[in-house]
Structure formats: C-alpha cells, structure tokens
C-alpha cells in the first residue's frame, strides 16, 4: 500500500492517500534535540524515529512510500521491502502542514495552539543557530580574517613605525637614515633609549652589521638632537616596545596563514602563494564562491572600480585585478599582460574548484602549464603591437 511521509519540526508523520495519519513519531520536546533531528534528516540520515516509523509501516504492509527529500528517498529505498520515491508538491502535504497545529493539539502533544507555536519557534531558532555554528567552522573564513588582520597590522605598523622615527628623530635625527628596517629601528629605541647608550659593544649585541656599528656610535656622539633625560623617553620606548610586539604578531599571523592556506587551498597556494590566495578568497567572500565564479570574473577580482566604470561609460575594461601582483604578470611587458592574465585566471579557477570541492593536488602541473603558456606568449608576441585607434572611449558609445 501507498503512504506519504511528512517531516515536520515536531516529528515524522505517515499519511495515507486521503491525508489522514497512519503512523506518527514525535521528536523530543527539547527544541535543541528536535533541531538536531531535523539537521540529520536533511543530511539524509535515517534517525531512530524514522526507522521506528518504517518498522511500523512494514508491519502494516505499506511498501510504497513518497517523501519530499531526494536523498532520504534513495536511502529508504535501499532498505528491504521499501520502494521510496521523491516527489515535490502535493496538496495533501500542504493541507496537512497547514493544520499541523490543530492536529498536534488534538493528539495531545501540545496543550494549545500557543504551545505549538512556542515550540516550533524555538526549534526554528535552534536550527538557525546550529547552521551558523557549522558555517563558522569553515576554515576559509579564518583565512579571510587572518589576511585582513595582516593588512590591518601592516597599516598600523607603518603608522607606528613612522611615529617612532619622527619622535625619536628629535633626540637622534641621524639614526633615521642609518637604519632602514622599521623593526630594527624600534628595537634600538626600546633597548638602548638615550643615544649615550649607543656604544660599540651594545650595538654589536643588537646584531647591527660591523661596518655600521662604528658609524652609528660616531653619529650618536656628535648628534645635533636635543639631549633627553630618561623620563622623556619612557613613553616613546614603551611605544617602540609595543610596535615590536606588533611585528612579532604580524609574523605569527603570516605563518599561521601560510599553514592554513596550504591545508585549505593547496592548489591555489601553489600558483599564487599563500597571501595572495587568501586575499583573493577574501575578495570573493569564500573559497566556494571563488570556485563558482567564471574565470573571467576571477581575472578582474580586485579591479571592480575599473570594471564598473568600463561597463558604465564604455571605457576599456581592466585586464587584471589582484592577480596583477603575481610575478608572471607584473614583470611581463604591457602587451602580454592581458593574455597572461587570462591563462593565470583560467588555471586559478581550476585550482579553486579542486580545492573547494575536494580533489587531488595538481598545483605543480598547473604551474608547469602556466609557465609553458607564458613562454609561448612571449615567443608569439615579442614586441609591442602597432597602436591601433582606440575604441569605445567616449561616454555612452556602448551599444
């Protein structure tokens, strides 16, 4: 005999062709547990309530089943004695769902309509919460946060390093030109403080190269800056110390990101390197979205402004977005860049798809192919083409 299975947030129901209930199994009255069941069923798991229900149906000779869910339908069909089909819309089910509150109150499951509403409302909330928890576990979200943190840190570090140099420059202006690296500069300020401390042995223990040590200590003796007392420099030294900490944090973040990217997107990383891969995922929104993009979109990711200007006014479209930072692109002569960008984008698309939907590592082959293609392009277009008349420059000329 035929029966229709209806899954709801309160339980599973088996209906006959007239739409009345033959069997029913309620979920737990704990909204969290009911939400769990809902999630498991959506994933196609045969939960205990369902298998009990199926047993009852078997006893009563119901062997042809209909269910709204395709995965569940195929799972149930694998059980002996059942033939289960997926179907889409049915007025029987719709009517049943509409009267679910009245029905369940009649069955004594809920005391009244309000009770039913409260319960289903809680289950829906629990389902959404659960969905968010599993969403936030996606690793590419962490990569996106990490790359944005890295960008924020770089901005902040530039700001603070500049400030340290400006401020310390009042006391020891000559050091500005002698030490290029921000991190080293900040360390000298924080460790040595007053320029009187710039003795040869101390500078050596800070790891300053030999030929510079002498120069720095000489300049320190004859500096034209004001002479500071120790309390003058305290705040500045503390700023330097914090800046050094930020440098350490920056390096740690970068290492973390490198590890993470190798894990979540090995193919992409093989072509673009960890930082740029993370950045392109960050622009796309997620690895999956990047994978779903046509590679022509990927090619101009990061050049949205130029792209939309081109769509709006008919000016020339951008050839490359963020992928311009790839070694092969920005070192190439101008007339080859568009061609190389297309090659790169197409292979990146393949890489992103493999990474997102699970596949083997073929990053090395992709890199090899890209290199081969670039050589071909270089051979075929060794010199700049003759300048043709530019097309579509004026506003509104696009048809």
């Amino acid at each position, binding site marked *: 005999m035929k029966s229709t299975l209806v*899954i*709801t*947030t309160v339980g599973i129901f088996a209906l006959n062709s007239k739409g009345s209930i033959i069997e029913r199994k309620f979920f737990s009255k704990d909204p969290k547990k009911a939400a769990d069941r*809902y999630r498991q069923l959506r994933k196609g798991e045969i939960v205990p309530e369902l298998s009990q229900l199926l047993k009852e149906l078997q006893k009563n000779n119901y062997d042809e089943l209909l269910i*709204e869910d395709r995965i569940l339908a195929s799972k149930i069909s694998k059980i002996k004695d059942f033939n289960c089909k997926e179907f*889409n*819309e049915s007025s029987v089910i*719709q009517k049943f*769902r*509409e009267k*679910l509150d009245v029905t369940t109150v009649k069955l004594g499951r809920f005391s009244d309509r309000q009770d039913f*509403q*409260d319960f*289903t*409302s809680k289950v*829906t*909330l629990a*389902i*959404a*919460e659960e*969905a*968010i928890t599993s*969403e*936030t576990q996606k690793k590419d979200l962490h990569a996106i946060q990490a790359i944005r943190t890295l960008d924020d840190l770089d901005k902040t570090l530039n700001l603070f390093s500049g400030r340290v140099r400006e401020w310390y420059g009042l006391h020891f202006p000559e050091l500005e030109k002698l030490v290029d690296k921000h991190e080293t500069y900040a360390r000298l300020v924080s460790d040595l403080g007053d320029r009187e401390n710039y003795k040869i042995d101390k500078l050596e223990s800070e790891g300053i190269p030999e030929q510079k040590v002498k120069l720095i200590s000489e300049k320190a003796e004859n500096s034209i800056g004001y002479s500071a007392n120790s309390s003058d420099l305290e705040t500045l030294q503390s700023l330097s110390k914090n800046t050094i900490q930020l440098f350490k944090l920056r390096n740690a973040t970068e290492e973390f990101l490198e590890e993470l990217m190798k894990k979540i997107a090995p193919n992409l990383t093989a072509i673009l390197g960890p930082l740029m891969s993370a950045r392109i995922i960050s622009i796309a929104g997620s690895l999956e979205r990047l994978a779903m993009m046509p590679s022509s979109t990927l090619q101009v990711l990061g050049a949205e402004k130029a792209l*939309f200007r081109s*769509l*709006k006014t008919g000016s020339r479209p951008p050839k490359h977005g963020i992928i311009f930072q790839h070694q092969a692109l920005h070192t190439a002569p101008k007339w080859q860049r568009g061609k190389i960008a297309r090659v790169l984008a197409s292979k990146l698309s393949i890489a992103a798809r493999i990474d997102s939907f699970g596949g083997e590592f073929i990053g090395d082959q992709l890199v090899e192919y890209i290199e081969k293609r670039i050589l071909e392009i270089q051979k075929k277009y060794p010199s700049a083409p003759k300048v043709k008349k530019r097309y579509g420059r004026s506003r509104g000329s*696009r048809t």
Partner: protein
Amino acid sequence: MVEVEVHEHDIFPNVFLVKTRGQEKLATRNMVPGTSVYGEELVQHNDIEYRIWDPYRSKLAAAIKKGLHELPIKQGERILYLGAASGTTVSHVSDIAGNTGEVYAVEFSQRSMRDLIEKVCRNRSNVRPILADARVPAEYRLLVRIVDSVYSDVAQPNQANLFSDNADVYLKEKGRAIIVIKSRSIDVTQRPTDIFKKEIKILENCGFHVSEVIRLEPFDKDHAMITLGR
C-alpha cells in the same frame, strides 16, 4: 520631559506617528520594552513605549513616508520576509505583526544572520530565523507555513523571479506582497526607470497585479517599492 504626542497612522493600524520637538516621526510599538534593536530612539507615551522608525535605515519606513497606500503587513498575520539582513526592518515588522503574528526571516549570509539572531530573534518569539538561500524556496519548506504576505528585499539580479518562486510555494491565495527593487543590483548601466518597468513586466507575466510603485528617493537612491497581489 519633552512633550510627546502619538497618533496612530491614518490608514495603517499599529504604525504610529510620534511628534516630538515639532518633528513628526514614524514609530512602532515596542514589543520588548526597554530594548533598542539597532540604536533607534525609544519614546514613552502613556506607559507605552514606541521605537522610532528611521526612513533612512528602513526602506519600508521610507515607502510609508513617501505615501504608500497599502501595507500588506498586519497584526496577527504570517509574513515571509526574504532578505532579512541584520533585522532593522524585521524588528518593526515584528512590532506590527505582534505576538499572534509570525515573521519568517530568511537570510543567506551567516554574518547578518548572527546579528539577526542576537538582536532580534532572542527577544522576539514571533520572528523565526531561517539561514537559507531564498533562490531555492524548497530548502525551507519544512519550516515555513502558508503566509498572508511576502516582503522581499533581496539585492539580486533575478529578484522578480526569486520573489515569484517563493510566492508560488508560500503565499496564500489572494495574498499580498511587497517587493523592493534595487536597480543597481540588476544592471548598473541602465536607467532605473527602465529597470523598474522591466521588473514590473516580469512580475505581471508571473501572474501578479502591481497596484503601487513608489520610488524611495531621497531616502534610498535607485530603489523602488512595489506592492502587488495575485
């Protein structure tokens, strides 16, 4: 204490006009007194608390300001809300629908959904959050019952079809709907007016009667709000 005057809106029950310091602002009755959802002002009058409804923050408020004639959202009704975002407008819709109403809030972005749950759903039992893609209405058919009206504010190129697909599954016979069209998310290169015309055409081809089209300038640029029914 500032002098406050409160009137119910002429044609929309449960929507209020609050007059303070000579200014007249839209408001709804706060379902959860004492809490402000997105930083909006709370006003007390005769022991009832109202939440000021900012037309620059909420497109529905903008449409009412611009002279909307029909509001399909009513007390005690079920509403399917597509594109709930962080719940600014949802919270006011929830105020209007009241305790006996139900608002099914569909949103695809987990980031926005986080805010929606934290700020709106935890306090308001009539709002049911659904993290799902509105382009696939079947995804949430186990959670949503037939509704009295649909409110659709999704910035999607195919939003008219998306709305119609949802209405086919969930909107009751003779149900009413509101749809917000953002012309720039359909095509940046075309004139908004042309896009609105085209979208209305699509809706009419899907069997809807458009009863009102309201442009939301100056509150929102290149947006139109359309009320319709079967």
